[in-house]
């Protein structure tokens, strides 16, 4: 292991490491800690310029209750879920199929189709912006959740295919060959042999895509406007103009908006990291 395990070093270094660790963490998360403290402060603290002091009273419940009752936040949150969940299902389904096709079969166009997906996944959003917005307008889907979901599914299929194809490549190919010798139909091989083995990849991709889509801001402002269809990332900016300079509410709102992917991350941590770091090890 590198660096040298702490148990094998001197006592002084061991103790200083143990104290350094929490200090470094606090420093690293300082901006977030500040927002968390802001969100439980009363309004009067900001009027009295008590920004960084201890909250003069604990107003956490009032502030968060106001976010949920006095603003459009619940609607934005609901929209975010309505956008994120269908996208995850759609993109994962499509990429299970494309990943299977590109991972199992050998044919001439294979690598080029694969590269098309990979390259498309890397393009700057702006080159797609005007045509995709126009397309969505023409289909009558501008400012609808469906319009946003359809685009997200299509775009995420690029990354998901890269992921799934590499995952399937690493599976033992003998299983598939054995099934073929038995005369099992190809679609049955997909359904009964490969798909069960893909469960960890499906879990990893699902959490990743959930986070990506939840945090999307660009497409939200390009393809939607207004409370009825915008997700929470776009909503937070109009929330902020509604509560301009009400830092305690803005902080509470930001924390609410950030919470679902954070919860997802902590619940599915192992899968999340496995997904992000696929390919970081040979």
């Amino acid at each position: 292991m590198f660096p040298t395990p702490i148990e094998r070093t001197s006592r002084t270094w061991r103790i200083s490491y143990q104290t350094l660790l929490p200090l470094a963490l606090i420093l690293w998360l300082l901006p977030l800690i500040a927002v968390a403290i802001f969100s439980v402060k009363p309004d009067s603290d900001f009027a009295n310029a008590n920004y960084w002091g201890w909250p003069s009273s604990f107003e956490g419940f009032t502030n968060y209750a106001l976010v949920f009752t006095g603003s459009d936040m619940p609607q934005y949150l609901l929209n975010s879920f309505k956008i994120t969940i269908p996208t995850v299902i759609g993109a994962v389904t499509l990429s299970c199929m494309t990943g299977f096709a590109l991972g199992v079969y050998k044919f001439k166009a294979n690598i080029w189709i694969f590269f098309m997906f990979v390259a498309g996944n890397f393009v700057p959003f702006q080159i797609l912006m005007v045509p995709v917005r126009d397309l969505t307008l023409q289909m009558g889907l501008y400012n609808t959740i469906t319009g946003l979901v359809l685009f997200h599914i299509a775009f995420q299929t690029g990354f998901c295919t890269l992921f799934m194809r590499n995952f399937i490549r690493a599976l033992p190919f003998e299983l598939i060959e054995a099934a073929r010798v038995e005369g099992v139909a190809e679609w049955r091989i997909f359904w009964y042999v490969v798909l069960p083995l893909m469960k960890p990849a499906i879990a990893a991709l699902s959490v990743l895509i959930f986070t990506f889509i939840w945090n999307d801001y660009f497409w939200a402002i390009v393809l939607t406007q207004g409370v009825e269809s915008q997700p929470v990332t776009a909503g937070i900016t109009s929330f902020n103009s509604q509560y301009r300079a009400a830092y305690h509410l803005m902080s509470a709102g930001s924390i609410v908006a950030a919470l679902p992917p954070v919860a997802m991350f902590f619940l599915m941590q192992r899968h999340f990291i496995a997904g992000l770091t696929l390919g970081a090890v040979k």
Partner: protein
Amino acid sequence: MAQASVAASRQNSWWHRNQQRLTPWLFLAPGILFFLFYVIFPIFQSFNLSLYEWDGLGQAEFVGTYNYEELYWDEAFYTSLKNNVIWLVLYLAAIPAGLFIALFLNQTVTGIRLYKSLFFFPFVISQVVVGLVFTWFYDPTFGILNVLLGAVGLPPMNVLGDENWVTVGIIVAGLWPQTAYCMILYLTGLNAVDPEQIEAGRLDGAKGWRMLWYIIVPQLRPATFIAFVVTIIGALRSFDLISVMTNGGPFGASRVLSFYMFEVALSEYGFRMGYGAAIAVVLFMIMLAFIAYFLWSMYKEERAR
């Protein structure tokens, strides 16, 4: 009856013979169609559109390379381009910073798992929220930055209001989640480092920086490659932070190409779709150089297998 079953078996055998050739295409069809429709065709449409003047509603007017000529004389375009280069260069700091934190956390003391996930935290949060948090951090009236500067005897500064500092200020905000990302890549990479090579290195008297540079870093190559890919793409995609923190200001000093394009095509400054598309094409060409390199590396690897 007998005829029908013969026909069925013949059909069956045709399918049977061609099954392996056709199945991949059937599985690929929905994904490819979706992707062509929403990603690949729009790229070409944007190229085409960059030769037109179009307000998004009326008739598009063909203007040839006029949009590109206008770009050539556009001061704001050069500011954006310059900022893109600054982003690319400074954003790469996330890679060594991530490695450093990963080395710091690669221990087995109690609670280290929780520490690792808390260090990773910033990456999970939306860039919009990161932007807000850092805007307050820099705020000239109450921002904690000026409190810290005052503590060491430096004069206060208004980072986001200063043309010379604003881009750096936004990049620092972007480095926060990006460093977390690189850290997690390296933590995974460090897990897979061959312990025997480390022991062999120790026996040969290598330690500290020399050990890191000659034995550890070469083994982290796959992690470094991915860290480069995601950091470069992230730098060129920077949009959310700029939009939330400064909206391109002050006086357009923090624009990058992706933001300037959006501003030209969709904001209150006018609906110049063709001009926006021309900017997007330039950004795309820059990105294409990197994409080509990434694909080339992947291709070599595929061949080696």
